[in-house]
């Protein structure tokens, strides 16, 4: 049997670096004696406090200190919720994220804005010396993602992308966390190369209907509480319509990429991890889709990607492959609910080594300057899958990708989708 050459691991082991082993210089020292929880040693701001951002207010990584939004209504609501969570009235409101970055007493910024802002704010935060907790998808284009990686690493930042299945939580229809699946892949029992099929029969709903755009938006008056020009930021100026903003923005290429953009990284980041592709990307991409509108994202049928070693990825947008295994290789298949055609799978797996442990406590990662389990590097690579898929359904022709240069081979138009200029004065 040919085995894949999975290197043993690439992460620092979380278990051996206990927090007390490090001296920590907190940015601000809280008064009083007694124990201070690690998360109380750090402060955070949440930039973008719409429906997704509100969820970040209560995350227990650090003390909420500031909130920021270009919609006054969202901002006022977030201050209220934030103060209730934190207690007292410590939470300050900002409209311009650069003023948040001006505060040297903030350690971490959360970025649950729409995706067209992710790279800009991530890079600004990195340059301002903040650590970063960014919503998925990591970046709207491959070019933007690449620059986030550079800025984060150059500035020695800790970056966490907000999806988590590679290290915790039930993995949709698989009836297990990702860990035993990783163990199975590493065991070699499935053989190599592997084929992964992602569709709603295994619990991975593409939400295509939910996050499709409209094709003929009538201009509307911008509500007084929203600074629409600021909301657009680097995106092209198009007349306001309420469907462009707040949640439904997902249906427009200028800001996101439909259900694929919204849910894709949840589903595919663990796949990159499972296939040990955290430092690379597919080399062939092909989509079967009805035509897409130049402005609005709509439904697609199927996206097939292939890695250099023959591993394959099927994104089944029609949820057609009812009986497809989630992962299959020459040695066996793994189905929904961790069912397999390999008899006695669970007992057999026990005999194999564990996958490498991962750093899964963000606060500790920040305090100890450790790379988080899902960070700028592997996050960028899994986001690249999303962006490759988006480009494939926009261009509707087979594409070849060079995962080292991160450029398409012999397709100028496709490469123009990798690097998309921003609207002045915004730039990376």
């Amino acid at each position: 049997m040919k085995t894949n050459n999975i290197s043993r691991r690439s992460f620092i082991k979380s278990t051996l670096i206990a927090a007390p082993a490090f001296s920590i210089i907190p940015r601000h020292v809280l008064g009083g004696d007694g124990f201070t929880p690690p998360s109380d040693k750090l402060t955070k701001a949440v930039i973008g406090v719409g429906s997704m951002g509100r969820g970040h207010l209560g995350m227990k990584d650090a003390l909420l200190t500031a909130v920021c939004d270009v919609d006054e209504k969202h901002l006022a609501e977030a201050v209220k919720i934030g103060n209730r969570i934190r207690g007292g009235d410590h939470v300050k409101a900002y409209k311009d994220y650069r003023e948040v970055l001006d505060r040297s007493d903030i350690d971490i910024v959360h970025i649950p804005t729409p995706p067209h802002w992710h790279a800009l704010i991530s890079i600004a935060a990195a340059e301002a010396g903040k650590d970063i907790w960014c919503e998925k998808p990591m970046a709207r284009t491959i070019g933007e993602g690449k620059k986030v990686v550079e800025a984060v690493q150059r500035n020695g930042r800790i970056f966490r992308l907000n999806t988590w299945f590679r290290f915790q939580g039930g993995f949709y229809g698989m009836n297990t966390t990702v860990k035993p699946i990783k163990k199975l892949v590493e065991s070699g029992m499935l053989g190599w190369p592997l084929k992964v099929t992602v569709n709603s029969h295994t619990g991975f709903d593409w939400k295509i209907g939910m996050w499709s755009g409209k094709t003929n938006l009538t201009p509307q008056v911008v509500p007084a509480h929203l600074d629409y020009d600021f909301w657009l930021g680097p995106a092209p100026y198009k007349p306001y319509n309420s469907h462009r903003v707040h949640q439904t923005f997902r249906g427009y290429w200028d800001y996101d990429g439909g259900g694929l953009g919204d849910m894709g990284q949840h589903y595919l980041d663990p796949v990159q991890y499972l296939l040990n592709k955290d430092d690379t990307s597919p080399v062939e991409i092909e989509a079967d889709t009805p035509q897409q509108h130049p402005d609005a994202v709509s439904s697609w049928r199927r996206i097939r990607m292939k890695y250099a070693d023959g591993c394959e990825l099927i994104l089944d947008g029609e949820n057609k492959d009812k009986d497809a295994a989630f992962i299959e290789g020459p040695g066996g298949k793994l189905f929904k609910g961790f069912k397999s055609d390999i008899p006695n799978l669970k007992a057999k797996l026990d005999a194999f080594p564990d996958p490498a442990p991962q750093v899964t406590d963000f606060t500790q990662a920040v305090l100890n300057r450790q790379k988080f389990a899902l960070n700028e590097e592997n996050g960028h690579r899994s986001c690249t899958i999303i962006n490759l898929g988006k480009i494939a359904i926009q261009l509707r022709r087979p594409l070849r990708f060079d995962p080292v240069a991160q450029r398409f081979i012999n397709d100028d138009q496709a490469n123009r989708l990798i690097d998309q200029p921003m609207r002045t004065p915004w730039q990376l």
Partner: protein
Amino acid sequence: MKKSYNFLIVINAVLLLAAFSMNVHAQGRPADLIEGFPAKTVSQENSLSANIIKQGSPAIASLCQMLQPPQTGGDVKVRYAIGSLTQYAGRPGASADRKVVVEAYLKVLSSDIDKQVKFFLIKELQWIGKEESIKPLSVYLTDGQLCKPAARTLEAIGGAGVESSLINTLSTREDISDESRMAIIHVLGNLRSEKAAKLIRVYADSKEIKLKQTAQAALANIGDLAAQSILAEASGVGTPYAKAKATSNYLLFVKRLAQKGDKDKAAAICRELIKTRNTVEDKNIPCEALSILADVEGRESLPDMLAAMDTPNDQFHAVALRLTGQVAGSDVTSQWVNKIQTVAPDAQVKIIAMLGQRKDKTAQAGLINLMKSSKEKNVRFASYAALGDLIGPMSIGLLIDALKADQEDEVNVIMNVLKQLPGEPVNEMAAVKFSNLSTAGQIAIINLFDERGATGQKALVLTCAGSNPEMRVKLAAYKAIKRVASSDDVEPVLAMMLKAEDSKERSAASKAVVSLVGEISDPQKRAQWLLKAFENSTDVSDKVLLISLLPQIGGDDALAVVVKATGSDNSDLRDTALRALAKWQDVAAADPTLELASSVKELKYHVLLMRNYFQIVASSSMLDVNKLNGYNNALEIARRPDEKNLIQLKKNELLATFNRPPAGFVALFNGKDLTGWKGLLSQPNDNPIKRSELSAEKLAEEQAKANENLKAHWSVQDGVLMFDGQGFSCVTEKDYKNFEMLVDWKIVNPRGDSGIYLRGTPQIQIWDPGQHHIGSGGLYNNKTNSSKPLVTADNPIGQWNTFRIKMINQRVTVHLNGQLVVDNTILENFWNRELPIFPSGQIELQCHGDPIHFRNIYIREIIHNTLSEQEEKDGFELLFNGKDHTGWVGDTKGYPVVDGNLSCKGGRNIFTDQVYDNFTLRFDFKLFPGTNNGLGIRAPLEGDAAYVGMELQILDNTAKQYFNKLKDYQYHGSVYGAKAAKRGYLKPVGEWNHEEVIVDGSQITVILNGTVITEADIAKEPTAEMFKSHPGLKNKEGHIGFLGHGAPIEFRNIKIKKH
């Protein structure tokens, strides 16, 4: 305003068309070109695009002329078509196509059209524009509205042509706005235009802050040497973020400097920043500077990386260690190994981890040394992991040697590393070195064997369990036995158990024994080793232990031994046996448990045994009647009032479930007396044909006689209808047509025989399959149609059986004990074989001369398009009479009445002639593939009811054509356009669904097949937009209708109650 605007567009289009039409052949009208867009498949799309391109630029231009600014709308197809052309013409190797398309875009762009349309075309050019687009696009650089899109497209095109055009505009047009200037400078920066540097520098200290920042960023990106002092200065002033941003600019400048060849200067600036800016506020700045330095100098910056560890900046450490990865070489590794000795333990830990991942074996000796000799725990810990990383399986021996450590945290760290290494080699090496390990190490290894199910290490585990001097190791080994050993090892483990003296060990060993015997596949054989040991043992304490384990193991032999031991003279043994029996959950223990519960002297054992007996009866899969017997037995021997109360309670609960009809059924037998039943007339009047010929007086007389006879032979006891085998059949007072019937029956004695007559006609057979070798349930008297059951599904004689019988028109379906035995088969007319079966008649429980019992006799009559008694009481009315369209208006022809159903083959709308406001509506519907209909409520008779009234969607949303096409509010049961329904409660296409719709004020509730799928408040939930497009949401009353969209569907049982 709007009007004249459209007019202008038309004029333009006409002019352009006129201009082009000269040299274009076979050109379709522009409107024809967009037919087919958006294309469904790629090949369709490509052929559409190819066809348009074939027609040339003028045709494409005429297409572009159909674009409209967003507020006018209606050009969706055009936008799809143009998007497709851009994509198609931009494919590799299609330069001719690209030229044709771009030519058209540019032509239209230069005409007098709306700026938002221009914006769209400029955006399209961003994907396919090249040299030819530069000049036409540059025109817009000075346009307030279009300068930014134009700049973006020019940036995407890039190259020297764009550069010179931008420089030209920036230098010659002094009248342009700052916005335009910024857009131009922005692009020039990204193009790294050295030629533009001088021009841009002018703005680098502008009073306009945005302009200044844009200029500085551009100069940094260009790497303009002359701008160094400006950029350096900016990096030290302003707010914290302004400083940070400016410093990043400055470092970008430094990077460009190096790229242009001035490495020394670049490196010097980086080192300067590392020195001067390494403060608590700016921890990231030395990081950034070192990163640039490493890019510039490569390995020459190694001393700077090493030196970073001497500063207190932990962020700087992390970056230095990461950058080391970019510098290859064993000398580099050596320098880091040496560095370890000079730094504090915290920093040592980080360096060690880096060395592990560096995969350079030069570090191996150093790491081994640290692992073995460092006094710092964390340093040792880091070394274990790093060695695992560095040398993989080669580290196994070293790591296992380290398990001599007796601190638990240290053992845990080592084990965590070992657990990631290949299983077999770890197991084997651990076995070899086992005796040298600390107790904590041994325990950890045994636990590992356990976790991994290391059957290869069985011998070691058994030895440890039997003879390791450390009790903690023994206990771990006993625990591991379950996974590493098998049922072949019961004997030695059993021996170890009996040998053990320590009570903890005995308990651990007995758990091991129980788990091992549990793997023996035949449950009856599981106890054999223990029983043998019991027989051979003379030691009472051993015997006691063995007996105490038997309830967990089970088996009839074991039970017999336990029962026997309850009579032992030895009180310990007897006590243990009684307790063991009181834990025996198998049904086989019921009788002995009951017996001993009755005879045992001590109250405590009586109570325990009674409790067990009661549980066996209550929880077993015993048939209800046997449970009833069990409860009766228990009641007889119960000694205490609380026991009696509990049993009585359970018995009553059981009895209460008897003869209670399930939902939708009524009881034919009330469980108490013969109400609803009468006697069958004696021959020849058992024949319905003969019976119908009797005069009323004669019939009454005969019936009176038959009823007397019935009372003599049919009786009711404990909810059971019992027949003594004499007399005649027992028959329902009422006649039944179509129905579903449930009935439990029991043949009392072997060779017993009976049956169920439907519509007064024999019969569904009940008999002893042991005698006839054919099961019950068949239509015994059929001659032409099948008379035998499909399978034999009978329970043994003396046990209860259940029929589910369905009779629709002439056909009968029977399930016996859950299995299909008669499948939709015609029941022939026994009384006159020329005739089909009677349309209705009495149901008869047959007398065949043998005792037979019945109970739980239920029926559900199937009569469509009629009201049930309950519905009549509740005030329902029939909306559809099952015969014609009385009460309906509209496209009644589209909904013919067929077999009592409103059967739509493709009709449009039909409405009630009455108007309803608040109501409860019930109806059944059957979907066909792709059915699309709707229930209109509060609708006017004219207009589209979905908008001017309300439509509750009726849809086969599983149909292929709707796949991925439906909005949430288009699924079945949704208030169309306003409120989405829950999905997944429709029955498969072709089966009947039952729906109830409750409309009450603004509340709409839809209940589909018993599940509430929609609960909407239509006053509050819809958005303003929805109200605008669906004004009918506000209607207070209107007609009820079925809104056809040309697809088939059937309806029946349409009933309404007004509120």
